[in-house]
């Protein structure tokens, strides 16, 4: 009998908001899914398409990019670029037949621990429904 599918998620968390939000969720003993592999980046704007693609190629079933809300970016407008870039990457994934819902962009501030747990839980369930990434990009 094969093991049930547990999605692996790479989450890029911005240092100033989302990582702190995730930290707060932990400190407050809130339950968040163990499927998330967090990678701390200084800004969500640092997350290049290359990084997203490498995560998928390395076996991530989903990639989550979390940054500060628009207007709250520590670098004023870093997340503006993210907001423009990630939708394009999603389109591009869909054009070559990879489900774009495997990539999600959302905003979580440092005070939004409940939001962090909600977004991560939602995303894990979405990706669970999509199945392993290897089905789509594997050889």
């Amino acid at each position, binding site marked *: 009998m094969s093991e049930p599918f547990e999605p692996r998620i790479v989450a890029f968390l911005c240092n100033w908001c989302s990582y702190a939000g995730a930290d707060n969720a932990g400190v407050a003993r809130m339950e968040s899914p163990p499927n998330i592999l967090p990678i701390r980046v200084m800004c969500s704007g640092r997350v290049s398409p290359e990084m997203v*693609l*490498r995560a998928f190629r390395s076996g991530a079933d989903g990639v989550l990019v979390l940054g500060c809300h628009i207007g709250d970016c520590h670098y004023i407008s870093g997340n503006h*670029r993210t907001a*423009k870039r990630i*939708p*394009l990457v999603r389109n*591009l994934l869909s054009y*070559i*037949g990879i489900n774009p819902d495997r990539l999600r962009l959302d905003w979580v501030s440092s005070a939004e621990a409940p939001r962090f747990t909600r977004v991560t839980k939602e995303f894990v369930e979405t990706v669970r429904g999509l199945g392993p990434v290897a089905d789509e990009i594997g050889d």
Partner: protein
Amino acid sequence: MAEQDTLIEQIRAHVEDKLPALDGIVALRRTSEGTASYLFHEGDDLSQLVLNPRYPLSTTVSMLQKRFPEARFGIVARGCDSRALVEMAKRNQIDPDRLYLLGVACTAEEAEECHCATPAPDIAQWPQAELLGTPVEAGSPNPIVAEYDAMPLEERRVFWKQQFSKCIKCYGCRNICPVCFCEACALENPAWVEPGVLAPPFPTFHLIKAMHMAARCVACRQCELACPSHIPLTVLYDLMRRDVGRMFGYVPGDDLEALPPLSLTLE
């Protein structure tokens, strides 16, 4: 082809007139060894100046302008060359004030073959420019792009896996690209593209290239022509052009003043 013959004669005569005032004009030269980009000077044999086969000249102009920071060069430019120069100017790779642009209108057959939306340079936006030949109507858009949204994910995946599996990673699509200029290319970075693997692992190589073409690709079709494996790259790049147009109202190569949206803040 009488019309074409007279057009090339006009171009040669025009280049001859302009050469004394410039430090050279970049165009294509055909010799017994083949056709390549060339910097024509006064006294050169202008009967060797040709328009075909098409080859992008913007990177040559960029290289020359950087090497000779005071010089004023000219270029014999088709619509696609002009669009590429516009994108290069926005990224500080060429200086429009030191460039004389001799625009050439493509023929209707050429416009159709390239699915070209603007088969003649828009000379109004260049500081010094003239246009030879009669601008023709835009070619019909790439039919695959219009039907693409109806194609199921599964079918797209099968199609592109098959196409990308033909890639021999020759970097021809990048090398010929008139708007590629980075000294350190992401496609040669082992962190992103595993070296020594053929075909490059699906889909990283081609998606990185496509993402870098967003808000930049001027639809010159050279990558597709250069590809020895006949991968229909322009389908992806046309889709990106369409999306960037829809999302940001930006058409690469259209307007020297409009800045690339991906490096700007939200409105």
